[in-house]
């Protein structure tokens, strides 16, 4: 029984990573109907920036803030940098292409992904980088026979707090309502006095920032990062987005968590090697029976 619990906690941890990345996908998709393939690379870049900060600022950070302080500082810095880069990428690679329609934007997003990924490789080199072990809190707990680390708990809590904050912004504030309204109907939203460009600015700030924080957490949790890792996480997060119903933010969060847990359970009780097959099978089955995802709404096409 304890093993099942452990697997579920592991699943939730990885699922919360997927969920945080998926939020970025979903926000961009909701408003722009663009699959932002570069989003996974925002996540990688965040992870590398956090790494750099920890390595080069390590002495300063640990003496002044302690280990946890270092973690938070790295996350915040990475988030700020990525917010800036996100807006930059949007201005440079996407904005000029919106008028031409969706498909060219997909290619442009793939191009942006290639550029970011290779820029990371050029800057940090092609090898794996390791978050310095001595800068990462490493305390084990054994609660009722369940093995868990404090870091894992912190990551879970932090992820849920971040998701909670985003949920609050999107669901409870007027600005969040403005974003949802823009996603539903851009023109009518502008009649309310909502500036479309500001909404875009916001989603390309917040999405990459969340991705960056996730990147730092992933770096902390696994210690090892590579310049290609965004692709894998991006694909899973995109899957989570669709699973939850594309453009639906709470759906994306649940989609991510469900995906993480499914993946872990699939690995544990079916086969580790076949777990991704299992995950994609579930996705396809879900879409066959619920063509708009688990939480997506059926939109009748007007004829």
């Amino acid at each position, binding site marked *: 029984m304890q093993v099942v619990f452990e697997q579920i906690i592991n699943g939730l941890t990885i699922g919360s990573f997927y969920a945080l990345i998926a939020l970025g996908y979903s926000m961009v998709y909701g408003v722009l109907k663009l699959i932002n393939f570069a989003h996974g690379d925002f996540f990688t870049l965040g992870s590398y920036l956090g790494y750099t900060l920890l390595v080069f600022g390590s002495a300063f950070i640990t003496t002044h803030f302690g280990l946890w302080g270092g973690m938070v500082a790295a996350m915040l810095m990475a988030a700020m940098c990525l917010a800036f880069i996100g807006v930059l990428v949007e201005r440079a690679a996407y904005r000029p292409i919106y008028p031409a329609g969706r498909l060219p934007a997909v290619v442009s997003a793939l191009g942006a992904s290639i550029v970011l990924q290779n820029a990371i490789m050029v800057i940090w080199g092609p090898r794996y980088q390791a978050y310095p072990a001595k800068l990462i809190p490493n305390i084990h707990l054994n609660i009722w026979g369940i093995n868990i680390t404090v870091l894992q708990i912190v990551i879970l809590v932090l992820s849920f707090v971040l998701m909670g904050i985003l949920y609050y912004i999107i669901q409870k504030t007027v600005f969040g309502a403005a974003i949802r309204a823009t996603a*539903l109907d851009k023109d*009518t939203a502008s009649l*309310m*006095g909502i*500036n*479309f460009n500001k909404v875009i600015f916001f989603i390309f700030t917040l999405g990459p920032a969340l991705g960056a924080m996730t990147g730092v957490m992933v770096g902390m949790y696994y210690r090892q990062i590579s310049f290609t890792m965004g692709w894998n996480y991006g694909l899973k997060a995109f899957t989570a987005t669709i699973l939850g119903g594309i453009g639906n933010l709470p759906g994306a969060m649940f989609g991510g968590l469900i995906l993480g847990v499914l993946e872990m359970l699939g690995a544990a009780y079916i086969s580790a090697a076949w777990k991704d097959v299992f995950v994609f099978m579930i996705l396809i089955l879900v879409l066959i029976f619920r063509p708009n995802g688990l939480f997506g709404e059926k939109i009748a096409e007007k004829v």
Partner: protein
Amino acid sequence: MAPLLIIDDLQIHYGAIEALKGISLYLDEGEIVAVLGANGAGKTTLINAISGLLPISSGNVTLEGNRLNGIPPYEIVQKGISQSPEGRKVFSTLTVDENLNLGAYTQRKKKQEVGDAKERVFSLFPILRERRRQLSGTLSGGEQQMLAIGRALMSSPRLLLLDEPSLGLAPILVNHIFGIIREINSQGTSILLVEQNAHKALSLAHKGYVLENGVISTSGSSSELKSNRKIQEAYLGGSALKRKGNQTT
């Protein structure tokens, strides 16, 4: 006193299609002006051009002497014009409350005023208060129309643009909503009303314009228009019937 809204020789194109072929009209402060016409006559085009959703090919739209041409829609709202669009266009997955809050989006910093505006909307449409937590997509057509009007009122506009508020509503509801429109007007908001329901609109409006294929064919005070045989013909095709009758006999 100069008119509140002046439209001068306005032309709008959709690609190669000329939707408005140079129309002029004006609206005085405190007035209800009705724009009548059949489907495709260009009524919605006119309203969207005022709101800034459509680029103006030539001509001018001025509000109290300020030119509105080329100003994006979200700034037009700040200038005091808000629109209740055709087909209601409520944000269906948002609650009634959220829809109303968005109506006051430009004022969102002023908590007090937003609260007052909402109270005013609720007093006009008490049903919305009951439904404030409900997703607006689950409202009935009439309630959605009330929400759309209420939402437009939230920014406390000087000029309210109403696009087909009677569309798809049962006659009794139409009466109710038109009563409220009059009420809104009596509270001091000028209204530009676009309607297919000519009798209804003219019973409310101070004056009216009839749009046909992108040009204004007739205009005048409500009483003049109401007695005008041409209106009935424009709507029910009396002339064609006569012509047909002539041909067959």
